[in-house]
């Protein structure tokens, strides 16, 4: 059962990922990204990440992607002009690099990872909002607070860069 779910959603994720790369129109890419996120959320659940799964849907798929789509609409960015020549380096070398990179990582994963028991749904209960919240306000208090600055900067940046001339 677990395996089936994993395979299905992993499949979706990869498919959407590929389409993100393949699609020439940004909107299409954006939608496929949302697809990836959605399927990942499911996989998170499988790994016992209730809270994260939720956050994934709300923050990512919800907030961030909306922002993206919004901007895309705002700039009504059309499909890429395919006529444009892609630099050779990027085209061929990039292909090779990618393969190499993936190969490396997977090799490491396969060869080096200590063999542990497989994933069973519900084997890990620590990912509840409660658990996370507890941690967040005790051990990870400082980073949590500091992130507020991050948001502040984000706002500030948005204002500075995007506001209309006064």
């Amino acid at each position, binding site marked *: 059962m677990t395996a089936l779910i994993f395979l299905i959603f992993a499949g979706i994720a990869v498919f959407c990922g590929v389409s993100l790369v393949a699609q020439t129109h940004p909107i299409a890419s954006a939608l496929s990204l949302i697809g990836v996120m959605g399927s990942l959320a499911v996989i998170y659940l499988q790994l016992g990440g209730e809270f994260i799964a939720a956050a994934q849907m709300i923050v990512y798929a919800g907030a961030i992607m909306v922002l993206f789509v919004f901007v895309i609409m705002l700039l009504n960015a059309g499909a890429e002009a395919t006529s444009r020549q892609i630099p050779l380096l990027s085209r061929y070398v990039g292909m090779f690099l990618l393969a190499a*990179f993936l190969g490396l990582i997977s090799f490491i994963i396969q060869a080096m990872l200590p063999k542990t028991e497989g994933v069973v749904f519900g084997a890990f209960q620590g990912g509840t909002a409660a658990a996370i919240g507890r941690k967040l306000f005790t051990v990870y208090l400082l980073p949590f607070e500091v992130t507020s600055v991050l948001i502040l900067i984000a706002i500030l940046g948005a204002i500075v860069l995007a506001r209309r001339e006064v």
Partner: protein
Amino acid sequence: MLLWLIPIFPLLGFLLNGLFGRKLPKSMINLFAIGSVALSFAWVVKTLVGLGPLETKYIEHYFTWIQSGPLQINVDFAVDRLTAVMLMVVTGVGLLIHIYSVGYMAEEDGYYRFFSYLNLFMFFMLVLVLAQNFLVLFVGWEGVGLCSYLLIGYYFLEQYATTAGNKAFIVNRIGDFGFSLAMFLIFRQFGSLDFTKVFDAAKNMPSETTYGTLTIICLLLLLGATGKSAQIPLYVWLPDAMAGPTPVSALIHAATMVTAGVYMTARSAAFFMHAPIAMDWVAIIGLATAFVAATIGLAQTDIKKVFAYSTVSQLGYMFVGLGVGAFSAGVFHLMTHAFFKALLFLGAGAVIHGLHGEQDLRQMGGLFKHMRITAITLLCASFAISGFPFTSGFFSKDAILVAAYEHAPWMYWVGVLTAGMTAFYVFRAWFMAFTGEYRGHAHPHESPLVMTGPLMLLAGLSLVGGFINIPHWLEPMFPEKPENQMLAWISAGVGVAGILLAYLFYVAQRGLADSFAKAMNGFYTLVYNKYYIDELYNAVVVRPLVAISRTVLWRGVDAGLIDGTVNGVGTRSRGIGSILRLLQSGNIRTYAAWVVLGSIVVLIAIGFAGGSK
């Protein structure tokens, strides 16, 4: 005895004239110049009288010049019999020539310059003969070379004069090269340069039959001597040196400086006597020089050139003397030669002076009636140099030739032949100058007393100078050689024959000379052009050296190779830069590609390979 006073007087004269001469009146200049030399002459006489028979060497120590480790060079002066002879010659003849110059240089500008140089020369020459070790001797040695350079280039507006000066200096430098190397070897061998120490040590060394250290030393010294005393192969500078004023030729290039080589060789007798091979070299070089120079002398038309080559030839004689072991004879001839050759030059000077600078014999003739004193005094000198019986030359030259016979008869015969030629060309010159019709355009006149006076004095000396028995006087230093009347008369006879031949050619049968010259044209031109030696040296040494230095070394190696490499490095690194900057295509995706590439490399390097170390 305050020996140092002897050279100091001329030095003072030099300083006074050199620093203030520009503003001084001639009378003052004369006073300083002649006075200083006169004083040192006087002091020499006083010293020698005071020192008496000089059985042993008399040494005075002044101060340490150089001291480094065991190497200690003192400034010491010493007098022994050899030095005594030299001192007398140098100061005596020098004084006469100074006086003579007053008249000769009267019209020249840079009068003070001339005399200050002359005094400087006296200083160095006296240092040379008084020196008690090789390095101090070398000081004088180089110093006289410098003065010769300055005086040859006295007419510095004329290219030929300055060039001759350079030539003299540089050729001498080649000689000095040998001399200094000899010094290094001597110090290396004996741990000192002091004459007494060194020669005593040398006396105890076995006589070398191979090219051992002593022989090498002697040969190097010989190289030095050939430079200074104008022997083959370095004699080429002397004829050109005639570019200087005639008194200079007389003093430096006839009487004193050029004999320094002879003096130095005689001084180092202790070495040479233990290095027979070197001795042979000396003798052969001397003989060759004597002969070759004589032949060249036969054909010269410039009166000073004639005497110049005869000087070279006579110096050759002296070296023969030294080479065959008759050191005293060599020195003896040195002295007499100083008399008559100085006289010859001064006489020639008087003639030139009388003819307003004309030097070409073909433009002379019949001068006897215009300048009697000059003519007669010159005649004496000519007799002396021809070895006419009972003139000074007769004794000294024959002493040498006899010794040569003892050593190897063939040397004697060559020497005799040379003597004949000498007599011939000297009288050729005399006849061409004084007999027959005047062929020039100037208005000949006799020189003033200040010039003729020295002439007469020297004439006297060259006639009777031979009766000063130098060999006997030097007996304690050098072994005396056996007399041999028989041989002496033969050579004298040949000399007379030479004179008669000259009379025949240039008085009795005019034109015989020319027909003779035509008859053996090839030899004549060859001789007339001094065997093309100068041209040879130019073509073989000078020009190639300059050319190579310019094209190969400077343009090629320096500018091309080395600097090329250096700048090449610069250009290369620019090149590298221009390639490296291409990484910055400005395109974000290319950059990303680089990042990926980099990360893969890092992964491999750190993830796996890193562990290997």
